[in-house]
């Protein structure tokens, strides 16, 4: 599980990596798998995709939490499809904090965007909600939605990729 305090640990780890001589770092512990690399072409051990940057992803083996069969009150972050590549030059839109990912403003309403849509700078792409605080996640620049990494209603963790946008001039 990825709780906010773990993210701080992660950030500290990434800083240490950046300050070290290491070329790659692969850690698998406590339900979290982490792959850091200096080479932008480096491949994470769990997928064939070329990650364009040092990336922390939840372990892909973690099964999504079954709502009725587990007594654990802690949310399992949605299983971000680590297999989905982020092609070079695409803008990755990430979750601002841990929360529930919503693709529409309200249940039953049209979704904010879908794959193939061209979105304008500042366009709402989704909502992330935690404890009644809703935040609209917006496109920074004009682009075409090429990937959507989470499903409506998924619990996403802070910094988790939500969308990849192909820039449009």
């Amino acid at each position, binding site marked *: 599980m990825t709780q*906010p305090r773990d993210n701080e640990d992660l950030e500290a780890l990434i800083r240490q990596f950046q300050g070290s001589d290491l070329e790659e770092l692969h850690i698998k512990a406590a339900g979290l798998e982490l792959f850091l690399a200096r080479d932008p072409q480096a491949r994470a051990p769990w997928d064939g995709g070329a990650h364009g940057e040092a990336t922390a992803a939840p372990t892909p083996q973690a099964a999504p939490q079954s709502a009725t069969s587990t007594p654990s009150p802690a949310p399992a972050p949605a299983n971000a499809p680590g297999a989905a590549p982020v092609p070079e030059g695409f803008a990755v839109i990430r979750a601002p904090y841990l929360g529930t990912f919503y693709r529409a403003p309200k249940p039953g309403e049209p979704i904010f965007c879908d794959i193939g849509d061209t979105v304008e700078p500042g366009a709402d792409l989704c909502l992330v909600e935690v404890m009644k605080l809703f935040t609209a996640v917006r496109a920074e620049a004009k682009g075409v939605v090429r990937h959507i990494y989470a499903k409506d209603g998924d619990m996403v963790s802070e910094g988790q990729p939500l969308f990849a946008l192909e820039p449009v001039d």
Partner: protein
Amino acid sequence: MALTRLFIANRGEIALRIARAAQALGIETVLGVSDADRDSAAARAVTRTVVLGPSPAAQSYLDPELVVHAAKETGCDGLHPGYGFLSERAILPRLCAAHGIAFVGPDAETIEALGDKIQARAMARAANVPLVPGSDSIASAADAVRVAEEIGYPVLLKASAGGGGRGMVIAHTRTEVEAGFTRASAEAESAFGDGTLFMECFVPRARHVEVQLMGDGTGKVLHFGERDCSVQRRYQKLVEEAPSAAMPEALRRQLHASAVALASSVNYRGAATAEFLYDVDRQEIYFIEVNARIQVEHPVSEAVTGADLVQWQLRIAGGETLTIDQSDIAVTGHAIECRINAENWQRGFIPSPGTITRWAPPEAAHIRLDTHMRAGATIPPYYDSMIGKLIVTGDTRAQAIERLEAALASFSVEGVPTTIGLHQQITAHPDFKANTIHTRWLEQALLPALDTAKG
């Protein structure tokens, strides 16, 4: 007939609070929990728990059919809705009545009438309760401009079905009223499915005061004094105190009498809070609304009156009448409550779910802590961020503040950020100590000053 087994349709600290009140009266308790709350403090305190459904509230705590079905299946003869969730949804008492379960609260018709702000205003007017100068429903932007010019700028456009500040627009000019009407109406339509608006004169320097009421359904209504809840952010209360030390005695008597008259006029049954704006400049009070439930901040009223309001709710729901009179209720001393939220207040108040790794609250005879937390407890991301209410009493307001400052300073929580640090800033501030604050003081004065200090 006295309740024998109570279904608690809520979670968190209030579920625990209700369980303890029921146990003190010898009532068995059944708690409906979501998947995330199976191991909560309330779940450990009750006689029995039943899992309502998955963690998201819409599939558990917010499903009235599911909740009442669970109450029925577990043989409960009473249901306490707590606050929030379904507590002011008329369907809940309606379903309870259909299944022979006593709802701890007023009947469905009363909830509906009070929940509609225009209806509630009409009820208040009929009971001679002072209203903020304003209108009934407004039909159009042109109508809005006409009313605004009648009552004088600035004005507040509000959603009839609204709450929590949504669908509310402040307008200072004719242009702002026209634009505001369209925007507020659309917002109200989308948030509440009802775009009806009304208008009120906007009071720039207002305090929020409210009266704790309890009625037994026969027309007898008692008040347990007033509370002052003027420290707010985005219409959410952060600090509440009793009594309202800023209010002169004559106005206080008028406040209590108005609140009691309103609740008596509808033969109110159960706990209610009548909320008012206190216009400090004009020394007037204006009715805002009645909340037909027990409120988060009820402990400050309990602290200064010695009453157990939740026990009274349960006794009245069990068919008892109020066996005490107004003369039996005296307000002694001063109490202040801080709502402690798991939020990073220094980073935009981001709610911060997680696990409590250290929980070391202060303890003393003058301290009450209503909480469901302990070391190792998790705060799920699905519900609100309140993790506890720290209530401190003193003989005077000054003594209560002094004790509160000491209590906050020694309250140690690790694992998630909390608003304890913000409460320290509030309680240490000269404006708070001098009691010259108003409902927008936190947002207009304190928070900007803290940001500047932070650089």
